[in-house]
């Protein structure tokens, strides 16, 4: 029952499942996304979310971090166990990095805060569908802090530190630059910017670095 097309045609509206326990918030987002996305399902708690996503096989799941019944991390675990290929974009009302890092480590490919503008949300959904991480300034700053005392590593596969390029990309993100602007400023293509961010996301999910691991352990993400 997983999504059959991991790389859907970008010209079609993304198929989105909306998961949030507040009906008012869902109806607000539904209204904002109506023109740009196809809402194929909605859910208000963990069990409902898992069932809905597996049934409808959307491109993108908009997932509230704080959900009754176990939170977004539970949903992400279940989806991963079911080999669901839908991309997950976490929505958080809090700007606390621990919440965000928890869902990132559980497999979400990006997060935005609920104060995001409708246009930016649509952009973020498109980016997420394309399999690219959505890395907000706050998350970028958190990662910079977490890796602050880390070694400067030679290649992107070294999980314990950031490469100078990755650090520079994150620094721009933390200052509020968009991918496209970062590409212009660093004189690289937006694709390259995205691949740097992807590498950082992977490090964040896999690294054993102390600060990240502590957040994860406190959230029960490490067994």
């Amino acid at each position, binding site marked *: 029952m997983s999504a059959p097309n991991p790389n859907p045609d970008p010209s079609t509206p993304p198929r989105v499942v909306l998961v949030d326990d507040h009906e008012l918030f869902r109806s607000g987002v539904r209204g904002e996304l109506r023109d740009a996305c196809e809402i194929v399902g909605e859910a208000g708690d963990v069990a409902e979310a898992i069932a809905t996503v597996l049934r409808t096989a959307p491109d993108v799941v908009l997932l509230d971090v704080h959900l009754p019944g176990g939170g977004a991390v539970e949903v992400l675990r279940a989806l991963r166990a079911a080999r669901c290929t839908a991309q997950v974009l976490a929505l958080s009302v809090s700007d606390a990095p621990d919440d965000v890092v928890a869902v990132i480590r559980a497999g979400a490919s990006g997060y935005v805060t609920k*104060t995001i503008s409708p246009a930016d949300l649509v952009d973020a959904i498109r980016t997420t569908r394309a399999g690219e991480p959505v890395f907000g*300034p*706050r998350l970028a*700053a958190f990662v*910079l*802090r977490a890796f*602050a005392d880390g070694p400067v590593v030679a290649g992107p596969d070294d999980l314990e530190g950031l490469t100078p390029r990755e650090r520079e990309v994150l620094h721009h993100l*933390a*200052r*509020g*630059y*968009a991918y496209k*602007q970062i590409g*212009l400023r660093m004189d690289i293509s937006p694709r390259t910017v995205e691949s740097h961010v992807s590498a950082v996301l992977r490090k964040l999910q896999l690294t054993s670095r102390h600060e990240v691991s502590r957040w994860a352990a406190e959230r029960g993400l490490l067994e």
Partner: protein
Amino acid sequence: MSASVHPGPGSRQARLVGPAHRLRADPVAALALVLAGTVALTALGSLGHTLALSALLATTGVVVARALAVAWRRRVTIVGPAVGLSVYLLAAFLFARPSYGTWAQMLTHERMTMDKAFGGTVVTLALAAPVLVFAGTRRVAGWRRASVGTPWRSLVASPEPAAGGAGSGGRRSTGTEARRGAAEAATGALAALVIMMAYVSTESAQRGASVGTVVLSPVVGLLALVGAPALLALVVVGRRDRAERELAVHRQAVAAHLHDSVLQTFALIQRNLHDPERVRRLVRTQERELRTWLSGREVDALEATLAGALRATADLVEEEHGVTIEVEILDDADVLERDRPLLDATREALRNAARHGGGAAIRVLAERTGPPHPATVVYVRDDGPGFVPDAVAPERRGVRDSIVGRMEAAGGTARIDTAPGAGTEIVLTLPDEPREPR
């Protein structure tokens, strides 16, 4: 006579062996159990004697196994189980080796007297006292937190009655585990004691003790068992009351803070419902304040650090211009007097962004750069329309004087990075060591 101190049905220790469970559940039930057991065992004669001994050994085995299992599984200190274990072994030894003579046999050698029955109880309690005291002190903390419960329950029942009720905050300490181990030991010891008393009564009856002695011996013993923890509990009541007073004071402080901040803001919002922009700003400012307060940082001490000073600056400009400013700090540091120009320049950069940024989000990022030129760097970025720096009319002195001029006078630099359509970024750098004048 209702079982008002029943532990939750799901509680781990409710699955202990029967007598121990009853005993924990209700001292009255325990007393009835012992009396009934005594009568039954006495009626059975020597078979009852054997049964009492078997029950003691069986209980001992179960309790010891459980205590060891708990200690192993929880990987906690095994002091509690160890003390309990030694009591069981001692009791079992005394009963199993009659050739040494047991205190019960000594007491019942002749016609049992009231004095001697009571003496036997005292000896029994002396054996169990270390366990009771140890378990009692370990349980005090848990009991203080619990707003309900009797002294008996606090000392003998599970430290987490009714699963997460009494507000112990959900976060388990290792102390809880140690306490649980101690509770296991104490419970087992009590079970052993009850059976031992039944044994004494049975034996007394066989040796021709009076009915009064046979009945009163376990009664006195159990009263002592109930009374000793109660006395201990009375001692800790003072401590609990003090904790409650502290809690009340704390609650009052929280209430006062919420009144001065959140409730005031609510009142302001109600009066300004016609002005959505003002309401938005009020909510935003209050949210910041509340977050700061929740995070445990002292609002007053905020401006002593770079993070606090920048947030305060951002709050000010948000309030003035009704914009949203996100502040991100990579490395915090104490604010020194010579940092003042940096903060002032940041404020002017933020005002500039608020005026010309077209309402787009404004971000502040601050960091400390390392050697060879340690410095504090503040980035102020808006995603607004941007401008052509050279095209700014000479009479618009804001950027030149209040930002660039200020930073250079302080030995730092201000770089303005902008282009039409690309937003604006102002980078303020203040080196720790002022550069040599050129």
